[in-house]
């Protein structure tokens, strides 16, 4: 058997002692230098075990392949009680599972608001008392093929985007976006919040349902690909995607509900983040297609509940690996400041899980000031994510990088080896229940979530 390296001009990749690399330079041998650094402390043994797992390479190829080949389509808008296992008195929330005692201000605020919306309490005090007494059942959105931005609270009467994966057959759900400012997902529950949610249930949801019945399924993969080329990164900037979505829906909205068309279109078009929610469901259905592949070290969910940051790994089933949620380093609205900020919250990191958001910062020059103020820093943020991901997305491309696909499919082993944590863009919720949004910025996930996942992968790897 021949060995390819014995024929042709040698070319060497060097990792380690610079002296040996310089010796190659002195011989004019072309080389690529690896900027190697030690892995996260304490991970050597786990890394060796996991990297030796003979299933790993093929399992990761399959996981990344399924994630990137998913074809999410928006097929319907339906009430949560119709599509989710959500009996009265049950609420879904963002992030890994959490109970009332450990819930942060905005999570509590959103749950209070949901109690009020569902008519389970007559005022906030009563809602809080009932919740504290354990009278509501809480569960993670992710356990129900669902994602929700910020607090991510879903109650039975809310309406949901239903997204179907035409490639692998999965389905995922996300609530309808309420807009900015004082909204339930940021923990606000005042009368204007509840009033808006009621209108969304009575008007917006039914009109969108009727609209989609007229338009038929909407190709979100193509829409996201276009929006990336129009300057969105699909987490903190959804302006182009929202415009594209409204453009697609507007004629059918008018046909389906001429009496409500103006208010519905004004609401959807007036909220730059209207697309965030169907986009998140698209990311969720794609990531879910990659779940449950034994031996795969790819992350299939990153999510925060305002207290914990959690990840799930394809090869490890539905287990969560958590660490404390960090406070975003951000920019603040009005007179708000870091002291007002709640720790990181929301399922919207499903966008980063699927290769968008912070991973696609280089596509969104308009909001680069989140990552330090400079386009080159946005490019650097995206570039560094190629170091910890398994694939480049075939459809989601970044014009400024020569239409290179976005980095997608975070590999736990690469995170541990490089010490590079996923770059996450996020909104910042006020710490006090009822406040709403106070800013937006960048947050680093806790390294411990990834090292815990790595340890579990090592335990699951076949011995020897």
């Amino acid at each position, binding site marked *: 058997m021949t060995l390819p390296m014995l024929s042709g001009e040698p*070319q060497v990749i060097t990792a380690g002692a610079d002296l040996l690399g310089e010796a190659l330079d002195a011989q004019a041998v072309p080389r690529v230098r690896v900027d190697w650094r030690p892995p996260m402390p304490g991970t050597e043994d786990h890394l060796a075990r996991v990297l030796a797992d003979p299933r790993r390479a093929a399992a990761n190829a399959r996981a990344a392949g399924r994630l990137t080949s998913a074809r999410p389509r928006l097929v319907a808008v339906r009430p949560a009680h119709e599509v989710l296992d959500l009996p009265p008195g049950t609420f879904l929330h963002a992030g890994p599972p959490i109970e009332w005692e450990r819930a942060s201000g905005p999570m509590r605020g959103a749950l209070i608001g949901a109690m009020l919306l569902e008519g389970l309490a007559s005022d906030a005090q009563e809602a809080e008392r009932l919740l504290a007494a354990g009278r509501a059942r809480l569960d993670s959105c992710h356990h129900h093929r669902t994602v929700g931005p910020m607090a991510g609270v879903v109650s039975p009467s809310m309406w949901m985007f239903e997204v179907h994966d035409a490639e692998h057959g999965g389905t995922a759900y996300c609530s309808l976006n309420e807009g900015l400012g004082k909204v339930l997902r940021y923990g606000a529950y005042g009368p204007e919040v509840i009033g808006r949610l009621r209108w969304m249930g009575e008007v917006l949801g039914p009109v969108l349902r009727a609209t989609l019945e007229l338009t038929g399924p909407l190709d979100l993969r193509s829409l996201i690909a276009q929006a990336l080329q129009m300057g969105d990164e699909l987490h903190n900037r959804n302006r182009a995607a929202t415009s594209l979505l409204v453009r697609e829906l507007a004629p059918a909205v008018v046909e389906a509900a001429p009496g409500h068309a103006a208010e519905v279109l004004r609401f959807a078009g007036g909220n730059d983040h209207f697309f965030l929610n169907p986009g998140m469901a698209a990311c969720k259905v794609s990531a879910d297609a990659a779940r449950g592949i034994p031996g795969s070290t790819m992350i299939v969910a990153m999510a925060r509940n305002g207290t914990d940051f959690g990840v799930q790994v394809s090869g490890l089933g539905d287990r969560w690996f958590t660490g404390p949620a960090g406070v975003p380093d951000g920019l603040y609205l009005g007179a708000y400041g870091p002291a007002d900020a709640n720790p990181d919250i929301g399922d919207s990191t499903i966008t980063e899980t699927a290769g968008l958001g912070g991973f696609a910062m280089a596509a969104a020059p308009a909001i680069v000031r989140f990552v330090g103020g400079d386009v080159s820093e946005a490019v650097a943020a995206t570039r560094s994510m190629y170091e910890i991901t*398994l694939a480049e997305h075939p459809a989601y491309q970044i014009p400024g990088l020569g239409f290179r696909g976005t980095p997608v499919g975070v590999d736990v082993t690469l995170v541990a080896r490089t010490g590079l944590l996923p770059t996450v863009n996020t909104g910042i919720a006020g710490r006090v229940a009822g406040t709403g949004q106070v800013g937006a910025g960048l947050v680093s996930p806790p390294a411990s979530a990834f090292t815990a996942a790595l340890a579990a992968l090592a335990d699951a790897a076949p011995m020897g």
Partner: protein
Amino acid sequence: MSSDLVQVRTGVYHDSVSLMRVSQAVTALPGVEVAVVAMATGLNLGITAELGFELPPAGPADLLVAVRAADPGAADLAAAELDRLLSGLAARTRGPAAAEHPPRTVRAAARLVDAPGAAGTGGGAPTDSAGTDDGRRGAPGGAALVLVSVPGPYAFAEAMDALDAGLSVMIFSDNVPVEQEVLLKRRAGELGLLVMGPDCGTAVVGGAGLGFANVLRPGPVGVVAASGTGAQQVTCLLDLAGVGTGHVLGVGGRDLSAEVGGLSTLRALEALDADPATELIVLISKPPAPGVADAVRQAAGKLSTPVVTAFLGPGRDDLTAAAESVLRALGIEPPAWPSWPAAGEADETGEAGWTGAAVNAGGPGANGNAGPPGAHGGGGAVVPESGDAVSARGLRGIYSGGTLCTEARLVAGTGEFTDYGDDEYTRGRAHPMIDPALRLEALAAVPPGDVALLDVVLGHGADPDPSARLAPAITAAVSRGVPVVVALVGTEGDPQGLAAQGRALSAAGARVFASNAQAARYAARLAGAPVPVRSTR
């Protein structure tokens, strides 16, 4: 009494993120209680009104400024600073001067090898739109390979990346657990790749010297070596005899152990056999584990290319003899190996270097069989006869190359030998081929009357001018009454130059040999030891 400043600037637009930054900067000014600088959207107007500011009518296309300061003076200062910050925003034109972002893992680097020329160029990134990147894209880049020299506990990950990317790998690192070595080599076997190492100090692939590597003339010999300095000695002697080497494939010192079972040796033999440019294969190793030796012998026998094996050990050929066997197999009579007399030695021709003195250490035995007893007179007239008037004195072997050290100990049959390239001396410091400090200390500590024997290994990766620091130490030793003998392993093509180093070391007072075996034999005789005759096996 606080002072409010409220302005609406029309026709000015900045994105909200920039403005949040400006707000923060203004709020941080002395005497400022709160500052809102934002586009006058409904949301921002509401937030500002809640703070108690009196607001004039304004719309989303207007810039709203609201500052509350401790006094009018502070408010004016804030307004001035605000103007400065806003004009700064407008003038902000720092280009995309993206710094270079070298890859952080071999995995990432392998993507760049795929697309030559794409490395490090901003914007010119590879546009491989393959959906998945499982690393198995055949044999990209043809002659690409990976050199891993990270600390041993971390080497496995980088080496596995190389294999995953379809690339062969040389692992220079030591302290890699043997079970990881076995795993890597098995995986390489499945993928048709080669793992060189761990603890592989030297390799030459397609003319590129990796690790500690000599500059060898190209030629028909291919080497498979479980011993780095052993391979260096043999290939350097071949080079001196005018015979070139195509590839030197190191396999790591443990490859022929029972645990590893010669996985890389077998693979390397097979690969060199398939290489049309390789006419003769030399296999250099310490004696293999018994079962492994059989497997290797069998495999070698099946090759169409002739194989010369040199398994070093007591009662076996030394490296010089092995080199001579190779030459004879190629139909070339071994030359006299170069040596340089110590400065002041009376009986030399006066022309230092390349003396041509009959230093035939190898004996005539062809095909690797040693010659008759007594044919090892290395050094000719200048070699003191054993059993001289000199009473036996100590011999100190101060080595940097492990195999050279072992060979010298076996050849000399006496003395105290230390391999300063061994793990216990290299933890936390550079290899003695790079940093001679420990060996200089050891040389200075040799008591007067004893003989010092050192190796000096040239080539890429090694000290760029080893004689510069050794020479004063040698002179000092000689003047203390410590004769110094040097085995100088290198070629004329090496960056340091064999002859230049030989001259410099001999001028300092050392007796210098290009053959380690000759140097050891000479030193042992100087020490008055009865040098054992090389076995005829």
